[in-house]
């Protein structure tokens, strides 16, 4: 009897486990916390938010410390400010751009293309174009043609594409993107609330595409009037008011707060009012001083960045209308030389920037009276004046670093050493160690991007 009990138990157990085994071996390895497939509307917010976070965080920080919109004497950022950087410091922005932003954007693009969701197809290309522009302007040669393919069996060591050629790639991305956006009614799903930048308004995305192109052309316009004219041409189809601005606004919870806020809350190494830019603003009695910088803002931002950029719901701006007006002023000076048109653009650029920031109209008027007139008809000097005001307007935007590199305005004194101010970011350690054969050899920050002449 007892022996039967023993066998009964043992055999039952074996059967239970043996049987359940067979059925469940295949299922055991599935991840119930991961959806098998996603929709464009769940990928688009990812791309926009991660782009906003990466630009507004790491990239704006490096650019701001290099172009002296920011100041730090503390810890890592203090070292960056004096150009003590290692290649490891650039792993984070590079990695986030390629993985969180561009890989997810490419996934979105492939998904939207496969279902002919034209609007998502178009948006994904505009976002890819913008991201690639950010990469090229800060690093120069970067991988693209062979990049973002590993998940489908592509190479682990993508080659680096020529930076000038990548500008052409960006243009064609925009061209295809705007074409798809123009034909968005033809294709299925369309974005709405999942598009935090434009709420699914395809006409705004088309304008954004033209704005990026205007940027690309103005970058190449030094000693090249044709490029300046190209930029001007794009501006006609780009933004026409502050409501067109391409920007991302984060949330008010700890897990959705913007990158500047989070940095100041967690780290607080940046001493905003001590920057060169703050001295410029101060010397001009610029009303934006108390908007950009807020010494009374003591909640967590003890070092005094203002609400507009420093709040949890602070702005991360990609391209704004006022920047395009500055581009217009510069492009006009470089191409047609129409001084009056340039003056108008310059004046309104400052006006729209201050309006955007909420400067009181009387303060704007006062400021424009003092600073709103181009003081010379000498093109180079006038461009320097435009660029200086544009630099003041592009607070927190990495485009300011590009602006300084290509115009030399404002005049900045290197904070350390004899090698000058960095002209680019270092290739990250991950590339040096994992893509050694392709990564350009220089570990220095002095070689220039192709347009930086």
């Amino acid at each position, binding site marked *: 009897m007892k022996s039967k009990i023993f066998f009964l138990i043992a055999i039952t157990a074996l059967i239970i486990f043996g049987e359940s085994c067979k059925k469940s071996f295949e299922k055991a390895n*599935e991840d119930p916390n*991961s959806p098998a497939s996603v929709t464009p509307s769940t990928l688009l917010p990812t791309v926009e938010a*991660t782009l906003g976070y990466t630009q507004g965080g790491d990239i704006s920080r490096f650019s701001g410390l290099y172009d002296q919109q920011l100041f730090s004497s503390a810890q890592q950022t203090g070292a960056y400010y004096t150009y003590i950087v290692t290649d490891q410091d650039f792993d984070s922005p590079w990695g986030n751009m390629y993985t969180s932003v561009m890989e997810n954007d490419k996934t979105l693009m492939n998904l939207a293309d496969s279902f002919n969701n034209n609007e998502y197809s178009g948006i994904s290309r505009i976002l890819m174009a913008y991201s690639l522009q950010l990469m090229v302007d800060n690093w120069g040669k970067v991988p693209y043609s062979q990049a973002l393919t590993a998940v489908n069996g592509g190479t682990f060591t993508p080659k680096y594409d020529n930076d000038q050629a990548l500008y052409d790639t960006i243009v064609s991305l925009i061209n295809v993107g705007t074409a798809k956006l123009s034909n968005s009614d033809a294709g299925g799903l369309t974005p709405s609330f999942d598009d935090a930048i434009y709420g699914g308004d395809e006409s705004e995305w088309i304008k954004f595409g033209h704005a990026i192109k205007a940027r690309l052309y103005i970058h190449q316009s030094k000693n090249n009037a044709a490029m300046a004219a190209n930029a001007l041409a794009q501006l006609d189809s780009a933004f026409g008011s502050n409501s067109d601005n391409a920007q991302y606004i984060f949330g008010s919870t700890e897990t*959705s707060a913007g990158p500047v806020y989070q940095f100041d809350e967690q780290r607080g190494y940046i001493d905003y009012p001590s920057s060169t830019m703050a001295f410029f603003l101060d010397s001009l009695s610029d009303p934006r001083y108390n908007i950009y910088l807020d010494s009374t803002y003591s909640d967590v931002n003890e070092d005094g960045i203002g609400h507009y950029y420093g709040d949890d719901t602070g702005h991360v701006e990609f391209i704004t209308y006022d920047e395009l007006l500055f581009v217009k002023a510069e492009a006009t000076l470089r191409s047609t030389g129409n001084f009056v048109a340039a003056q108008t653009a310059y004046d309104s650029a400052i006006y729209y920037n201050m309006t955007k920031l909420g400067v009181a109209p009387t303060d704007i008027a006062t400021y424009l009276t003092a600073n709103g007139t181009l003081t010379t008809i000498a093109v180079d000097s006038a461009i320097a004046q435009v660029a200086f005001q544009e630099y003041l307007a592009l607070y927190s935007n990495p485009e300011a670093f590009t602006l300084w590199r290509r115009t030399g305005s404002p005049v900045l004194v290197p904070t350390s050493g004899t090698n000058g101010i960095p002209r680019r970011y270092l290739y990250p350690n991950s590339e040096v160690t994992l893509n050694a054969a392709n990564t350009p050899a220089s570990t220095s920050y002095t070689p220039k991007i192709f347009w930086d002449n």
Partner: protein
Amino acid sequence: MNKLLTLLGAFLLLSSHLFAQGTVTGKVIDSKNGTPLSGISVKIEGTNLGTSTNADGSFSLNVADSATVTLEFSGIGFGFKALQATSGQDVTVAMVQENKSLSEVVVTALGIKREKRSLGYSTQTVGVDELNKSGTGNPLSELEGKVSGLTVINSAGDPGSGTYIRLRGVTSLTGDNQPLMVVDGVPIDNSINNFDPTSATPNVSGPNSNFTGGSQPTNRGVDLNPSDIESITVLKGPAATALYGISAASGAIIITTKKGTLGEGKINVEVNSSISFENPNQLPGLQDQYTQGTALDPTTSAPTFLPSPVWIGAAGTFGDGSDATSPNTGNSMGSGGKKLSWGPAIDTMYFTGVPDAYDKNGTLVGQSSPLAKTKAHPYNEYDFFQQGVTYNNNIALSGGTENSSYRVSLGNLNQKGIVPNSAYNKTTFSVSGQAKLSDRLTTSAAINFISSANSKVQQGSNLSGIMLGLVRTPPTFDNSQGYVMPDGTGDQRTFRGANGPYDNPYWTANKNPNTSDLTRVFGYGQANYQLLKWMVLSYRLGGDFYSQADKLVYDINSGSFPLGAIYLNNYLNKQINSDFTINMKHDFSHELSGTLLLGQNYFYNQSSSQLASGSGFVIPGFYDISNATSYQNGPNTNGEKRTMAFYGDAELNYKRMVYLSVTGREEKSSTLPISNNTFFYPSASLAWVFTELKNLKDKSILSFGKVRVSAAQVGKDAPIQALQTHYLSTTITDGFTPGISFPVNGVSAYNLSNTISVIGNTSLKPEKTNSYEGGLDLGFLMNRINFSGTYYYEKTTDAIFTVPISYATGFASKELNAGVLTNKGVELSLNLVPIKSKDFQWDVTFNWSKNVNKVVSLAPGVSKILIAGFTNGEIDAIAGQPFGIIYGSKYVRANSNSNTFLINDDATSLGYAMPIAGQATGQIGNTNPKFISSMINTLVYKSWTLGFQIDWRHGGDIWNGTRGAIDYFGTGKATENRGQSTVFKGLLGHLDGNGDVVHYVGGVEVAGPGAANSSSAVYNQYYWQNIGSSFVGPSESDVEDGSFLKLRQLSLSYNLPKGMISHAGFKTISLTAFVNNIILWTNYKGVDPETSLAGPANGQGLDYFNNPATKSYGLRLNLGL
């Protein structure tokens, strides 16, 4: 196993009464003192006939009338003896007690008991006496130093913190390298479940986690109660564990619990109680000579790095002297100055005597200030630590009748840590029993309940970390004067003003409660059935289930989450293990016998973690998720794994001289692709006890000698869910911030990739380790000297790991079979009994081991992978180097092939005449010790026992990031040299715009380095912040040698004489006084070098604001009734 079968056989025989022709009777006694020995096996040579002795040592055997037979006596701890006897004879046999290390029966894989002499591989057993010495109630930390080849690292002195254990070297690059833990034949979970919201990768639990902040992670192996453990056998290599399969590829820790014994018929009561007191044993050195502040530029008030500090304001005043409310928080200096301790010398400063929120003595001013009243003095920040106290109480009842036995135990460990409000309270309850239901059927079962509550301590790179806030505090600020501002705002009082952001350690201790509550049940049921005389069937079903509920709270105004945050994480783990085995034995002749085991195993594990978090508290001090204004669920994880296996183990025993054992296991794992999920691994071992040879036998000089060799191949499966690429709820982080996780503004989103995502691989195959081992065991002078030495070589191929790939591919990594690792090493142990007399015995054991690990290759194009750490202090696996290399930035060298520093010859540079912080990174340290060794002494004099253990670790670098940071902030002891000048050794030069070495000749750059430096430089703030410490400067500057020599344990026990206590009904009463970690010799400048930021994870060798370890002293009382 042989013995067990023999015993079972004997029982059968007794009950059957088949051959009743005549008898041989007798008695077996201990040769030493004549006491009767029970349980000695008595067997008639060349037959299966036998019995075992009763409680009074007597036995009776049926033999053929007037036959003369040879009786073979053997017993655990008494070796073997043969004797001729004739029917009707009554014999007395004196058995010689063998040295236990050579004769002991050890529990091997699957609970199989084998005589140690028969093993062809290396094991070491730690007995009951060794397992309760420290009073910590942590069975894993009790193993420290006691087993050669076993690395044990206690992460910190925090109550309930983890203990990292590893056998031999690392065989798995990103998988688990901790050995399998088995209790009474059933594998139990030893995983790490931890959530660290302050790390970049907060929810990556497990062996490859990179916890840099949060609280000290715990591995669940610490749940066991050492008082319930009879012995721990450590199976060191694959040959020993091949029967366990994949789960034991890193060795196994086989734990046998205490049980009641059959036949005693009365109740035994065992009580042990201890109390001990703990204090930090080593802390980083802090300076006590300079105040908070920074050198200021007198023209702009901006912080600067002047060679000698200049203070603005009236001569001798501090700061601008006008800020009367909080000048010693440096409010006038901007954030750059507040956090630093680069101010004037304290002995030049005075208190104003007007109490304020920051100091009851008032503000600091210079001596010439009219406000100066009393001379300033530093505070001791380490007054923060309190004396910890641990109560460890255990009671157990056991007993048994002829056919059944039981043991019931209750234990409680109650620990109050050295950090205020840290605590660990663990209650264990276990019941075990066995019953002989018939002559053929025996059953046994045990169940263990564990309930623990742990109040943990914030640590590491974490604004709320205890040490981070504490050691950055300037010596002129007293944290203990309150952690809340006295103004009623609820703001936090810190040395940087209200609300930090570095938390006042008292704030952390009171306002950042971090608790972990565990409920766990594990146990087994087993039945053995003697089907035939030579065949026993066994079935064992075991389970391990627990729920761990963690709650992390950051009150409003905490540094990490100023708005307040709460994280509730529930971990559930279920695991079931089933083994069906058939045990067979056969005597081929009287010289050759064999056993064969066949078995089937099924294993199932399911684990999950459910996270709910909230942020934005409404009411301060109310730690409930309802108090949050925003909520988030997830990320949650669910994992499942199943394996099924068939296995076999055959052993041949020739004359108790040659033992050959062969095992094989075929396993199928759910983590591998279906097409490739079954794999086989074999092992073979041979043991030759050459002292059994006729002319070597029974020699007194070489009394025992054995040579053993083994080879094994073991495999490892893939991590769970490694085949697919996963869409997950979107998260992004950067190097500085926790980042965002969706939903954002009410919108949900998924990502396929981010900087930690992995491309799955549907063509993974098992990873394989081939292992070869040889050893020699020798006993001299009747085993007064015992030596055991083992050499092993292991090679892991097709190592499955998460291979990092260029981010430009769109992903951070891919699961691949790629790496090759080798480990080779030597393990030696020597046991001596230098003195052995009637009243006095001295036992000493030396353990020594050395492992040489090499990461032969990673994946194509991959030269290193990150295991843990920060950009300025990484622990990496680098091809061609041992696992666990410290990697980071270096000083610029004058030539690429020399180690000579380049000394800055740019006179305009702040770093003139100093070494140059380089941009390039490289290998800067090796965390692997050259060897680890220990000496364990036991001296018994009459009723007194003195024991002590000294551990020596030679080599093993540690990145002392704590020192780097405090030197940067100016609180480090080393920075007291500020103002002193020195001439740095090296060649003059600097780097040009292309990064090439050049030097100035008359203001012109010339290629290459120049002459030797002879200019002096001053150890100033600039030097310590940018050149001399790794906080911003070269990581290389803070790599330190972690060698140490430590008096781990010292104890003195007194056993009350039997005569004195027996009339009161006691069997034993002993009283022990003990101290732990009381002396530490080390050049390491941080906390105790046995420390680990990542806790029990693979990335060892990091110290970044690690919490200190403890030394302790205490008393223990053992009672036996």
